[in-house]
């Protein structure tokens, strides 16, 4: 069970917003993670490289945070697997997240952060839709099927 963490959530969100702003300001690119990752399959070497470097940085930044906080005595801040959580839900979830973000051309960061920041009606519709679908699905998984 997780508890409400307003400060770390807000500061984390601000850092993500700063990252997206710098990427647009310097490189003219949108920090949408699904778009950046899907574009890795590019024949253009420069296209591949900036994407790979950004994603390596993302993993590196998270790695640095988890290392630092584990060292300071907070290993619970890193993600841990959920005992007894069905692998089938993870596989089905992964397939749906992949296919859905490709079809909608964006995920939480692309539509939810950058799209809303560009005041794009398309992104607002996408964000409200995936939030609603997420809430409905979570209800079914947790309260109808009974998986935690």
């Amino acid at each position, binding site marked *: 069970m997780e508890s409400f963490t307003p400060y770390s959530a807000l500061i984390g969100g601000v850092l*993500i917003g700063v990252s997206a702003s710098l990427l647009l300001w310097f490189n003219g690119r949108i920090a949408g993670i699904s778009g950046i990752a899907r574009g890795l399959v590019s024949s253009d070497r420069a296209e591949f490289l900036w994407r790979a470097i950004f994603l390596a940085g993302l993993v590196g930044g998270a790695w640095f945070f988890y290392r630092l906080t584990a060292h300071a005595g907070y290993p619970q801040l890193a993600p841990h697997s959920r005992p007894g959580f069905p692998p089938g839900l993870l596989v089905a979830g992964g397939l749906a997240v992949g296919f859905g973000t490709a079809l909608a051309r964006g995920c939480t960061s692309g539509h939810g952060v950058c799209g809303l920041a560009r005041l794009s009606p398309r992104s607002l519709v996408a964000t409200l839709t995936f939030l609603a679908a997420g809430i409905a699905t979570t209800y079914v998984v947790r309260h109808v099927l009974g998986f935690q």
Partner: protein
Amino acid sequence: MLLRYLTSLVCGLLFGVGLALSGMPRPLKVLGFLDITGRWDPSLIFVLGGAAAVATVAFHFILRRKTPLLAPSFDLPTTKIIDLKLIAGAVIFGAGWGLSGYCPGPAIALLAAPNVEALYFLPAMVAGWCLYGLVGWGLERARKS
């Protein structure tokens, strides 16, 4: 060109630290938000709200410029239409998010602290991307023949 890679790296690092600090790579944190009938955890709205608020103000000024600092032009999505593809995609993505507790950013951040869930989720997400490419290619071929 090299400078552009450096800014990519800095932005990636900031994004990764932000994600890890926000707690969103922990699926129970995300599901605690999506589960509005359980013990609700509003943290996710602070993450999304904080990020979108900063970006909205910054983008307003950045997009007044003719060009970005290190590239010849801004590379922005051009599609404006709200169609079935957008809605269906968002519904499918949202369903996968609720099933698993992961969206693409946090899922990739899992590589920083890999566990058995990453082993199931990440290849499936990549397979979902490939499946979309395959379906698009098939439809294109069917249209041409």
